[in-house]
């Protein structure tokens, strides 16, 4: 088995027109046959310098994954917080600068997990080509950020959503045989939503920012389907797909209104 990884992020028309920076970021890393990670982070538009925060969050997350070969989510979280804090001190960042989501896929040996802290989409292509998508949404476009734990242990966030039992976030699953939505209480999503993947089943697993839900004239399912339709999986394969997608978008709309990011791991089951 061999892994290839790549990532891409692009500014949305709203930020471009407003002279704002791209607040999405993506990162990927592999050692080819044992470890692979793909990460995206989406900075909050109404936060501080979240273009910097999203980069810090993505890099902290990657480092934390590398430091945790057993992929223990809580241990990864602790390491992420530790790295975030150190980066904040070193760069004099404020808590509001760190309001950024963290979505990742990680593979260590034969274990693969994906995790969403915030909102966005996880998508995977089975070895037979079937696509499954899992979208995490938070009510009122108020996703959880791990920075909230450091700030007040989520107190204000829970309150803003109407309490720990309020159905503040939902999971929308789309697969080849239908789709369904599951509402969840706020409390269940505070530290993130994880999925364990059977590595033998998939050839592509990707994470996306919620920018895929805001592409002019396109449904998010179609956006994800198109972005997962790689023509090749070598080198900058995600960047090539994203660039062609953006070009094609211009034919029928304005393209992404919000910033958009994706990171993907390709699993080559035939490679020795």
């Amino acid at each position: 088995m061999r892994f290839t990884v790549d990532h891409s992020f692009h500014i949305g028309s709203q930020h471009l027109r407003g002279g704002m920076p791209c607040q999405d970021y993506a990162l990927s890393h592999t050692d080819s046959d044992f470890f692979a990670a793909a990460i995206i982070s989406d900075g909050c538009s109404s936060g501080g310098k979240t273009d910097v925060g999203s980069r810090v969050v993505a890099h902290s997350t990657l480092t934390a994954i590398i430091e945790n070969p057993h992929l223990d989510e809580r241990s990864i979280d602790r390491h992420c917080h530790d790295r975030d804090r150190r980066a904040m001190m070193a760069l004099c960042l404020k808590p509001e600068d760190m309001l950024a989501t963290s979505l990742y896929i990680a593979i260590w040996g034969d274990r693969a997990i994906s995790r969403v802290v915030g909102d966005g989409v996880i998508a995977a292509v089975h070895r037979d080509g079937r696509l499954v998508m899992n979208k995490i949404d938070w009510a009122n476009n108020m996703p959880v950020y791990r920075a909230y734990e450091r700030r007040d242990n989520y107190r204000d966030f829970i309150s803003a959503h109407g309490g720990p039992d309020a159905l503040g976030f939902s999971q929308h699953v789309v697969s080849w045989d239908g789709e369904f939505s599951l509402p969840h209480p706020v409390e269940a999503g505070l530290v993130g939503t994880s999925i364990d993947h059977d590595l033998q089943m998939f050839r592509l697993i990707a994470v996306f920012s919620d920018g895929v839900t805001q592409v002019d004239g396109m449904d998010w399912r179609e956006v994800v389907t198109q972005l997962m339709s790689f023509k090749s999986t070598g080198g900058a394969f995600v960047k090539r797909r994203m660039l062609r997608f953006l070009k094609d978008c211009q034919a029928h709309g304005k393209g992404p209104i919000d910033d958009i990011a994706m990171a993907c791991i390709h699993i080559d089951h035939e490679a020795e």
Partner: protein
Amino acid sequence: MPRLDGTDIETHNLGGNFSFTGARIAGLGATEYTLVDIEVDMSGSVSPFLSDLIAMIKASVEACRKSPRSENLLVRVAAFSSSYPGGINEVHGFIPLASVDQTAYDRLSAGGGTPLFDACYVGVGAANAYAKMLFDQEFNANGISFFITDGEDTGGAASPAMIKAEIARATKEEFLESHVSILIGINAAACTAALGRFQKEAGITQYIDAGDVTKGKLAKLAAFVSQSVSSTSQALGTGGPSQAIAATI
């Protein structure tokens, strides 16, 4: 970086007896490439300055390595002479600069007539065909072709009309974002009018008479080639051709 040990090179037919090679596309890593094609006259009349001509090719390729876009160049170099089977000797197909073995140019020898039309046809056709393969795999590409000759065509299978059709196809089908073709005459004072006529008939972007061959002129020609390549590559993604290329050397 691809290993160009034969397994990473593929041969493609262009129809007729023409073919070209290129790096296996699955092994390419960037998002976009400029295809650089250099066709060099190796007819008998270049014998007096063969070593300078080879030095010019080497200097052109070497200068491309210094371009900020060097990682995004795929370079093909072919020699043309009626002494080669089919009139064309492809030294190497479209490959990354890092994989170019400069010693291969030393093996070129001069002799025979000048199948200039065939060289131009294959050069543009190879760029078109390879660009389509890149496009299908979601790479962006543009191209620049140089045809360096010291004389008129002395016979072959292709005609100026065929070249014109191939050049028109280069951008019409949009596999190449832009394509520039440059016919360069060296020691070609006696046939400047004929080469100028051929440039117009074939729809080649530009004809440049580089004058008599001297070491200085060939050095300038090498600089011109690399600057044109760099300029073309920097224009990739803008949707248009490069800035105007100087008409004199």
